[in-house]
């Protein structure tokens, strides 16, 4: 099939950037979206045009590296699917496709469709971990965890940290990402000890990094390739309310 692509081209973080239009011809419906981009880039190289830079790594939907807003949907039109797992059979011959990077103040564009998502790493550094004291290895099942809690924690742990929630949010908020970490760790006894401090430090870091605030739009849940539920944001809000009486110190 033949397609018309409108791709965001931006030389660097300082460049203003603009959409460029390219033809994608003889595309197989069995190709993944990224394979289609590879074909287009080969064509561009032959014409002496700089190929479109885009992020990708595992190409099997688990690394969270690919990041393209396709026709206004982060990761494209198919629900619970990353760009690399999206196939061209989702499109029709003659379609016009708009491809843009994640747009957020916290994710500066490095080049074309590649954005710097290290702000999310700093959110994790702010509290998305469990402090482990050194010592002997504990017995595997010494700490009992109710099955429901373990499963809820696993649902939250499905987050691959791609940032689609930020890209989808009308406010550019990272609340679903933060909520998935807070929710996962607060459900487990190992993470419970630091739950109150974690919810405060991570949500504070979110504002410092320039992400927006959550106003319960839920576009994040629709865009999430792992289908993480906004119930974790409600849980985050609960965790924050429970942290209030504990009096958290900002700098330790």
């Amino acid at each position, binding site marked *: 099939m033949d397609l018309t692509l*409108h791709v965001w081209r931006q030389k660097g973080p300082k460049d203003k950037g603009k959409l460029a239009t390219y033809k994608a011809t003889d595309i197989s419906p069995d190709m993944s979206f990224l394979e289609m981009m590879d074909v287009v880039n080969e064509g561009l190289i032959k014409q002496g045009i700089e190929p479109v830079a885009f992020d990708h790594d595992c190409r099997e939907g688990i690394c969270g590296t690919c990041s393209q807003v396709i026709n206004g949907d982060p990761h494209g039109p198919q629900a619970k699917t990353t760009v690399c797992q999206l196939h061209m059979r989702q499109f029709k011959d003659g379609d016009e496709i708009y491809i843009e990077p994640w*747009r957020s103040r916290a994710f500066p564009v490095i080049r074309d469709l590649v954005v710097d998502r290290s702000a999310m790493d700093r959110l994790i550094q702010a509290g998305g971990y469990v402090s482990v004291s050194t010592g002997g290895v504990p017995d595997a099942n010494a700490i009992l965890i109710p099955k429901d809690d373990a499963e809820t924690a696993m649902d939250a742990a499905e987050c691959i940290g791609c940032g689609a929630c930020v890209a989808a949010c009308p406010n*550019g908020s990272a609340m679903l990402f933060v909520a998935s970490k807070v929710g996962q760790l607060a459900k487990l006894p190992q993470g419970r000890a630091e739950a109150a401090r974690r919810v405060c430090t991570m949500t504070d870091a979110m504002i410092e990094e320039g992400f927006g605030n959550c106003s319960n739009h839920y576009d994040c849940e629709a865009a999430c390739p792992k289908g993480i539920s906004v119930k974790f944001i*409600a849980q985050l809000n609960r965790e924050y*309310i429970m942290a209030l009486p504990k009096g958290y110190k900002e700098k330790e």
Partner: protein
Amino acid sequence: MPLKHLIRSAVGRKLFMAATGFILFGFVVAHLLGNLSIYLGADGINAYARHLHQLEPLLWVFRLGLLAAVGLHVLFGIILTLENRSARPVAYKRKKHPRSSLAGRTMIYSGLLLATFIGLHLLHFTFRTIGPQIEMLNGDMPNVFRMIVDSFRQAGYALTYVAAMTVLFFHISHGFASLFQTSGINNEVTLPWLGRLSRTVAIILAAGFVSIPVLIFFGLVIK
């Protein structure tokens, strides 16, 4: 935890919006119940107004409380909206909104329209600087029944109030559900129907308010 942190926190400020929103929602419900006394005729609503004014000192506590709630709700609403705008400096050329509602994304506009309406509404019925001239009943109590009926016989007033209550419907349809999500009273069981409940509550409230100017304008029920 110091109040200072609560005000700067991404969740703390949501809680301020929710708490003040809850107060304002409670007021809207009470206001509607009071208004419905007009269906008992002139004696009904005038008696309601008289009883309300007999609570004078307490009434001022309520009014100041409401003023504080409105002030904080508007202030935080504006601050949060400005921050959210700045979180996406370059807009998408194409953007879809698969889950979010138009009502949710336009809360700042419906909110500012409502704030303007509250101003007009106070000038109209509380300070009586706009609207038809009203006779006073024994002393300083206006004839509330005539005040309302004479105003809503005029298409301009009736339409303004119907429009304002339509805006209220949009604001509450997002706000009511948000109240639960923000205060953490939500899970996978309640999530699917909370949105529907929110729209139902908003439509009941708006329809209750709208019924008054509509029925008065067309001369139905209240002559």
